[in-house]
C-alpha cells in the first residue's frame, strides 16, 4: 500500500524530524493536534489528518534521570528524559540536554524548554539520523 507523503504516519513523522521539523498530526475535522501522530483522530475518529508545524516551545511536565539503562543506552548514563508539554497542547517524551543530570534538585516541573535536534547513529544502519531533544529555554 502506497503511503502519501503527507499522510500522518510514524515513518513520515520521523522523516520530518530528520529535516529538523517538529510537527503534530492535525485533524482536519475537529482541529485536534495529535502527538505522537496517529492515523485516526482520538477525539473524533476522523482519518483526515495533516501535519501542523509546532513552535518547539514548551514546559516540563515531569522528568527522570536514568542511572541504569537497558543494553542500548548503557553508555549514555546518567541522562535526563523529560515529558514536555508543548505550547500548542500535546506532550512528547525526549531527552533533556544542557542540564547537569547529577543535580536533579535544580530542575523544576513547569520550567520552560525549547526543542532542538541532535545527530545520532541510527540504531538500524550505519547512517546518522536526527532526533528530537530539548534544552532549557
Amino acid at each position, binding site marked *: 500500500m502506497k503511503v502519501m507523503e503527507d499522510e500522518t504516519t510514524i515513518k513520515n513523522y520521523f522523516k520530518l524530524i530528520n529535516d529538523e521539523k517538529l510537527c503534530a498530526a492535525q485533524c482536519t475535522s475537529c482541529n485536534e493536534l495529535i502527538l505522537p501522530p496517529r492515523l485516526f483522530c482520538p477525539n473524533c475518529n476522523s482519518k483526515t489528518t495533516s501535519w501542523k508545524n509546532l513552535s518547539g516551545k514548551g514546559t516540563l511536565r515531569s522528568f527522570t534521570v536514568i542511572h541504569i*539503562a537497558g*543494553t*542500548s543506552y548503557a553508555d549514555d548514563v*546518567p541522562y535526563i528524559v523529560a515529558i514536555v508539554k508543548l505550547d500548542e497542547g500535546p506532550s512528547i*517524551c525526549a*531527552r533533556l540536554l544542557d542540564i547537569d543530570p547529577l543535580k536533579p534538585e535544580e530542575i523544576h516541573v513547569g520550567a520552560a524548554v525549547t526543542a532542538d535536534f541532535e545527530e545520532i547513529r541510527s540504531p538500524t544502519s550505519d547512517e546518522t539520523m536526527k532526533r528530537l531533544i530539548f534544552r532549557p529555554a
Partner: protein
Amino acid sequence: MINVSIVGAGQTKFGRHDDYDLRELFALAAHEAIEEAGLTPKDIEAAFIGNLSADQFNRQTHIAPLMADFAGMKGIPATKCEAACASSATALRAAILAIESGQHEVVMAAGVEKMTDLPTPGVIETLAMAADQIFEANPGITFPGIFAVLAVAHMAKYGTTKEQLAKVAVKNHANAVHNPLAHYQKAITLEKALTSRMVAWPLGLFDCSPISDGAAAVIVTKTKKARKFNDTPVKIIASAQANDTMNLCDRTDLTSLYAARTAAKRAYQQAKLAPVDIPFAEVHDCFTIAEIIATEDLGFFKPGKGGQAVEEGLTEIDGQITINPSGGLKAKGHPVGATGVAQIIELYHQLRNEAGKRQVSSPNYGLAHNVGGTGATCAIHICERW
C-alpha cells in the same frame, strides 16, 4: 456479581531459581494448586497462563501448551495471556469468564516468569518494551524511569517526599519477613532505603521491586460446586479490567492511573462494596510510588494523601487499611507474569485466616490490584471469605 470461587492455590518461592527451568517452576505451582483442590491434572478443563516475555527471557514462545504438558494437562485448551505485569490477573479474568460462560467448570489460572536467565541490562531492555517502544523506550526511558516520572509529578503536585516512598519499602520488607515464599525475608531500615543506589531519580534500588523467578496457580470453579473440592473456598465477587493510553504523553494526569480508577469503579460496582468496606489489599507496588498512587486510585485515601498515609502507619498490618501484607512486589518479589495470581493467593490465605504472623485480623473481603506496564492495563479482583 460473579459466581466463581477459588478451591486450590499453589505458589513457588519467588526469587532466583538457578536449578529449575520455566516449565518446572510452572509444574510445581500447578501441582500444588491441583492437589489442594483434591483433583488430578486430568480434572482441569482449561488453563489460562499469564506470562510477559518468555520469548525474551528464555527464548521460548508458545509457552501455554508447554506449561500445560509439563503439568500433566496435555490436550486441554491452554492459552497464554499477556498484559505485561498484569498478565496473570487477565488470565484469572479469562478463567472466570470461561466458567461464567458455561463452557468449563474447573479451570486453572496461573502465571509464570523466569527473568534471571537474562543479565540485568537485558531485563531492563525487555521490561521497557512494555512502554511505547518508539516514543518512550527509544528516547531512553526505562521502566523504573516511567514510574520515576510519575513520582516527580506526584511530588511536584502534592509534596510527596522521598522519605514517604522509602516508608513503603520498609513496611513491605517488614511484612515479607513473615512470608516464607517471599524473595526477601529481610527487614530494612529507613536509612538503608533512602541511601540505596540510584536507578532512575528519584527512585533508588530500594524503591524498585526485584528481578525474580516464580510461578503461581489457582483452581477456580462455580461457587455452588466449590465445597465439593475444598472445605473453605474463597469467593471471587468482582473481576474488572480497564485500559489506558500506552504513552504517558497522551495522559492528562501523571499522578494517577486512569485504568486503575476505572477498573476500581467497575469492581466496586460488581461487588456492591465501597473502598471503606475493604480491610486489606494487595496492590501493584512495582515501585514504591506505585503503591502510594494505588491507594489513592482505589479510593482508600484522597488524591495526594497516600504518602502521608504510609508515613502515619495507616497501611501497616494492623492499620486502617492493610496494604500488601504479603510483602508486595517490592519484597515478595515480582516474576512479572506470576504476580497477578500470586496476589490472589495472598487474598486466598488471608481470607482463610491462614497467613500466620502477617495475618490481617479476620477480614471479610480483600482486593487485588494488578497493573500492566505503565498503567495501560489494570485488572482488579475482589474476594470474599466463605
